[in-house]
């Protein structure tokens, strides 16, 4: 019964047009915007649904430590960034987080995990920023870890920790769409000139 429902769901997804995948539209949905720069900015706004989702924002704090949960509460226990964006000495991210999500035994929920689990550097902090500000930051090699736009695409489309956002474990809402679609949006945004929303 369960398996059949799952199969039906999977078929539906497979058959669905790419611009309507779980809360995220694909590049095709923007093809009728004639002006390329406007289209590019619109594509970034769509990417913004991922970038500003709690799954991403929680570990892109601007000051202090990470937040957690769909309501972005301060991290509990209190966590401090540390010099390597990996928590305080004596209480690193890896003191609790593992290479994969681990379900709690005595209650619903899980502790998230991935092979690399750490905060984005301060220069890549997004919390409280407008989408335009986030966009400018992503494009700025001085603040994005020296990445070219191609490397940004690779990061969005391939990076495992980014991909965790769509497989966050029990008790957390996944980021909208899929990493593949996020990659496609990033590709289209770059190809249209990587314009930022105003």
């Amino acid at each position, binding site marked *: 019964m369960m398996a059949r429902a799952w199969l039906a769901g999977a078929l539906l997804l497979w058959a669905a047009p790419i611009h309507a995948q779980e809360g995220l539209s694909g590049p095709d949905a923007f093809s009728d915007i004639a002006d390329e720069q406007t289209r590019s900015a619109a594509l970034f706004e769509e990417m913004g649904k991922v970038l500003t989702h709690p799954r991403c924002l929680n570990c892109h704090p601007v000051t*202090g430590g990470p937040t957690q949960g769909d309501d972005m509460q*301060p991290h*509990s226990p*209190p966590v*401090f960034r540390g010099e390597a964006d990996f928590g305080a000495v004596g209480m690193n991210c890896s003191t609790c987080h593992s290479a994969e999500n681990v379900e709690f*035994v*005595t*209650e619903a929920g899980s502790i998230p995990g991935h092979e690399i689990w750490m905060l984005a550097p301060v220069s890549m902090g997004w919390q409280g920023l407008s989408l335009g500000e986030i966009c400018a930051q992503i494009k700025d090699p001085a603040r994005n870890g020296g990445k070219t736009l191609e490397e940004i695409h690779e990061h969005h489309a391939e990076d495992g920790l980014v991909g965790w956002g769509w497989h966050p474990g029990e008790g957390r809402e996944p980021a909208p769409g899929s990493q593949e679609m996020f990659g496609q949006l990033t590709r289209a945004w770059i190809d249209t000139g990587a314009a930022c929303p105003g």
Partner: protein
Amino acid sequence: MARIQTTRRGVLAGGAGLLLGLTLPFGRGMAQQAATGPFAPNAFVRIGTDDVVTVMIKHIEMGQGPYTGLATLVAEELDADWSQMRAEGAPADGQAYANLAMGVQLTGGSTAIANSFMQMRKAGAAARAMLVAAAAEEWGVPAAEITVKAGVVAHEGTGRSSGFGALSQAASRLPVPEDPPVKAAEDFVLIGTDRPKLDTVAKSNGSAQFTMDVYRDNMLTVLVAHPPKFGATVAGFDDGDALAVPGVEMVRQIPSGVAVYATNTFAAMKGRNALKVDWDMTGAETRSTAQMFDSYSAAAAEGGQTVEETGDLSALDGAAQVLEAEYRFPFLAHAPMEPLDAVIELGGERAEMWFGSQFPGLDQPTVAEILGLPQDDVKINVLLAGGSFGRRAQGTAHLAAEAAEVAKAAGRDGAFKLVWTREDDVKGGHYRPMTVHRLRAGLDADGNIVGWENVVANQSILRGTAMEMMLQGGPDATSYEGSTNLPYQFGASRIGWAEMENPVSVLWWRSVGHTHTAYAVETFLDELLAAAGKDPVQGRLDLLPGDAARERGVIEKVAEMSGWSGSVRGDKGYGVAYTKSFNTYVAEVVEIEDRGGSPHVTRVWCAVDCGIAVNPNVIRAQMEGGIGYALGTALHDRISFSPGGEVEQSNFDDYPMLRISEMPQVEVEIIQSDADPTGVGEPGVPPLAPAMANAWRALTGNRQYELPFGGGSVA
């Protein structure tokens, strides 16, 4: 319900009120000793041939220091060296080990030192007298010429000397003195000085044995699925999936829920997750916290029954200014770090238990009744407890009862370890009662308080428990203590209590009624003093009668320690509060900062008068810990009910504990005193939250009528 076995001369008396005559169980040890056994002149002292002195501690060690405290009292009169002292938890034995303040074997009310002070000293003095008599006989010298110092028995004239061990066999054959003399306070060597605690080493290297650390042969670990709402019961269950979990051996219904038995803890957890229980919600409490507060508030507004009255409250009618406030306090879980647990082993028509029994006097008869055994065939080994704060002293013996039901339902002999998870603990009731205080007071044109009314609405803690007889049909003072018997001269006053019905189970929680009364009284008083333009410290002192020397002593001391000079200095606020609880006087000053709209307590000064300071080190530790315990609660904690009646918290993520990053600096001073010692486990708690609220109001103007404060900052 099981009956409590009280000592012959004992009666059940409330709190720290009645101190009974000494009932030393002398004579138990003497005649029974085999030639090679240790010297045990009474139920409390054992001296081995290796010079080791072991004190059987009748009060459970759950962090408040009775192992060290009671051993100190024995060592003092025995003139032992501290290095030869050991402590061991006394087993359940209502005759030998009753709390003399209560007539039953129970730890609570911060009474451990107070009720044992003379009893333990007499126990030590008796042993000393017998060692001296044995030496006198052996050496052929007068007992009066023999001295004992730091574990050495000596005779100056002959130059002979001996340790305790070498004399112990001879001593054990001598009669036990009925009423050995004890030292005068000025001769104390150990009492009043610092020394290492007896349980520190084992607790620093992981070797200390707690209940959860007990493993018996072929033992099964048991988790119980409890009802999701208070008042719900088991309608039925499907254990198919649970039994399919490898390691799960059986599933049984017991009165408190459905028990899952497994060969290891993880299997028991998985098995319980897989268990499907159909709950009968017919009698379940479905009110939300907001709905409960509304009914409590309405009851408080009606005035309740009068439990204390002084003068004529109509004085308020002529007051120049009348202030009113309603305070709301949530249910609170104790959340000791070691969740509730108990090991029980059945076999050969006997039961043996190992757990942190805080109330052996009730746990033992309760288990005996459930298992249909004579009480003497239920042995309870009282182990170290990983915190309690009141949680393990249950007037219903519900944990011991659940363990017994688990063993009984298994239908066979064997050992069973009952374990509660943190979620079971946080959702499991037995909370500090939620409470509403309604206060009203008036000032005359000169700013003098002319009338004071406080109506408290909450549940009785004792009603429906084995302790209900203490009420003798009257109101339950544990629910409002601290609102009555105030030292302040308010002119006319009236204290009312409205007893609320609520199926949510309640229990005493570290400092009991004072957890909320101190807050309501001391913050409302602060507002009155502010309205009258008076300084919080001087204003309090001015309200004290002339004979309130000890109250005055702690308030003046804490003002001096903190360099008190008003409520605001720069960007910091200062607040003071005073409480007498469990016969101990405590005043605290809190220094607070506003960090982004959240209160952050940076320093706390504490002055305590607990009579003779038996162990200053332990007293300071209890004040420091009580302050931290109170601060975490004031900042963060509430147990709340959703619409529909489910507890909304489950673990430390949503019922947060204070963390080190929130812990202020704490300075403690102990008032020198020759009065009999009083308790310290609880009295550090009550003044903290009101002092903090007073500091916060002074700094920000914000009045906090409901706890917790919320927010809080971590850095």
